[in-house]
């Protein structure tokens, strides 16, 4: 009897501990304070390319390009978080959606693609999002009825199929790829933006050589998408996802249409992946099958889990680390993946909930650990 009381008390304590700390203090701040701090942080992110902060800037590569890559990876992570972190579906071939989005924009917008239409970027991107959503549904429809482990291999196969298709098909120009992927706008910087370091009035806003425009566009999209996913997370849909993640059968019994919501998670995740692919390759202006290996896809999954699946800030942190660290530490280029692999193992052993865990997920893990201890 005492043991039961004890364990109940301990469980309760761990829950209390999970919610106190930084998070508690943050939510205890007055509303005005929180808004101002958030606002200041967002301004800081926008200003980051202009601030030459020592130690943070990358010595060997253009810092703004690195920031842009981070932003794209964050967008990828936000999308992948919907699939893995919220709905608990393991998608190892997420890069397939990224590729579909990127290629849709390239094929519809480039003058050098086999398709003669040449839509502007603003038209291409919504089409690309729609196409990736549809591809998500097409992939999800047959496979989401399968058990989780099978989903992993089928999605992996999907990613590989997309890559092989891009490599060999005529519509993607095969390995030669497509040049002249459209940029968001042909406009140039106005006079009144001239004060910002790195911006020259009259130069094009979106160009490969000066990425500030792309970076600003990317983080704007990141903020919009994070806000949107956050709203979804706290809606009926989000609650269904969490229920499915924690116990699919129980959710089904409670009246959650699990298949429908899993399909939604897949489609929304796919759409975000497509958007990030479209964005990244607009900056590259060139696309071929080289950038879509499954290994990157697997690294993304690792980034999401390491950052803290289920928590948007966590997955963003994971994505930033994945994009930023290799660029910052070029001198360890040969060993960086080795270190990464070891770090993954160490992380899963000592901090399986991720760097910035989702509160609920952390409690789940602790519960499971306790069950395991009873079972041993």
């Amino acid at each position, binding site marked *: 009897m005492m043991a039961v009381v004890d364990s109940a008390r301990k469980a309760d304590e761990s829950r209390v501990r999970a919610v106190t700390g930084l998070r508690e203090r943050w939510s205890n701040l007055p509303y005005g304070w929180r808004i101002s701090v958030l606002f200041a942080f967002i301004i800081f992110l926008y200003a980051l390319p202009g601030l030459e902060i020592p130690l943070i800037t990358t010595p060997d590569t253009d810092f703004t390009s690195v920031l842009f890559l981070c932003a794209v990876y964050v967008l990828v992570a936000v999308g992948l978080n919907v699939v*893995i972190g919220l709905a*608990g579906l*393991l998608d190892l071939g997420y890069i397939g959606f990224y590729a579909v989005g990127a290629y849709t924009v390239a094929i519809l917008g480039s003058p050098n693609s086999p398709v003669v239409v040449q839509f502007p970027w603003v038209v291409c991107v919504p089409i690309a999002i729609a196409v990736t959503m549809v591809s998500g549904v097409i992939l999800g429809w*047959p*496979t989401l*009825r*399968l*058990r*989780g*482990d*099978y989903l*992993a*291999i*089928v999605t*992996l*196969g*999907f990613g*590989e*199929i997309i890559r*092989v*298709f891009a*490599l*060999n098909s005529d519509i993607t120009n095969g390995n030669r790829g497509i040049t002249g992927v459209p940029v968001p706008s042909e406009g140039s910087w106005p006079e009144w933006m001239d004060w910002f370091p790195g911006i020259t009035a009259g130069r094009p806003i979106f160009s490969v050589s000066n990425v500030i425009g792309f970076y600003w566009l990317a983080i704007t999209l990141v903020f919009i998408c994070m806000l949107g996913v956050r709203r979804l997370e706290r809606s009926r849909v989000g609650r269904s996802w969490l229920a499915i993640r924690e116990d699919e059968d129980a959710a089904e019994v409670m009246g959650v249409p699990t298949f429908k919501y899993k399909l939604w998670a897949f489609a929304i995740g796919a759409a975000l992946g497509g958007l990030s692919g479209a964005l990244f390759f607009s900056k590259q202006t060139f696309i071929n099958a080289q950038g879509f290996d*499954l*290994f990157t896809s*697997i690294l993304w*999954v*690792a980034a999401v*889990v*390491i950052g803290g*699946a289920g928590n948007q800030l966590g997955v963003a942190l994971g994505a930033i680390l994945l994009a930023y660290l290799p660029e910052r530490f070029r001198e360890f280029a*040969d*060993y960086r*993946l*080795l270190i*990464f*692999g*070891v*770090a*993954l*193992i160490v*992380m*899963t*052993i000592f901090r*399986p909930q991720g760097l910035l865990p989702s509160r609920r997920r952390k409690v*789940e*893990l602790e519960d*499971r*650990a306790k*069950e*395991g*201890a009873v*079972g*041993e």
Partner: protein
Amino acid sequence: MNFEFLGDNFMSLTVTGLTQGAIYALVALGYTLVYGVLRLINFAHSEVFMIGTFVTTIVWAGLGFGVGAAAPGTFGVLGLIALAVVAAGAASGGTALIVERVAYRPLRKRNAPSLIFLISAIGASVALFELVGALTDRQPRGMPSLVQPKVQFTIFGADITNLQIGIILSALAMLAGLDIFINRTRLGRGVRAVAQNPDVAALMGVNKDRVIMLIFILGGMMAGAASVLYDVKVGITTYSVGFLIGIKAFTAAVLGGIGNLRGALLGGLLLGIVENYGAGVFGNEWMDVVAFVMLVVVLLFRPTGLLGESLGRARA
């Protein structure tokens, strides 16, 4: 589309596919054993295979059979292969065991969800292949062609070489051996018991941890044997060789019904054959696409694979 080619070369494509499939099947056993007992996709298994391919070349080179060395007589070749099987089996089995101890056991103690296991497995996989990549300067490593393919006989217009016969027969022999081990021996009974219900098996006096170590070693040894066959067949290896074979072997395991030993054999051979037919019809570059499309189609109609899963329940 080139159905004429498929029709003309049906038998030879079949035999090539069987040869490739035999190697898939051997690697698939490792996935299936671990999955059957732990319900865990051992993603690092592809690297276990890769280590075997390297140990084989190292052993051969150490005995004076480096790149371009002339092959010794028939018995010499057989001896070299047997030696390589022992060495690669030991190295791969050892690697698998280390992966289990370092990456999985701490998580098992904590009853972690399968996603966490998967990340740890990915970590182990990346670490292993990067380690070998750094050690080999990311250069491919060659070896002598010990067996010159020689046509032994012809069936329906397909030339069957001694190499193909050797690979298929030795893979079948190893599979049969493993099957007997799991179904007939005391240790095998322990494996099946843990696969069926770990807790009850533990109550009945089966040492769970030892069984888990055993399946990792067995799977690793099969991968080691497969790596020798691969080396004899292909004659070159690199640090990244495991990735595609690993994915294919896992596909084969799922296709036959993961957790099912005979399923792994069936899945491996079928995958090898179908992807060769596919390559014949659509061209070589579409080989992998055919393999994965077949996987999706089979899973649609038989969601647990062709022979059904479970090492414990079905006849293993």
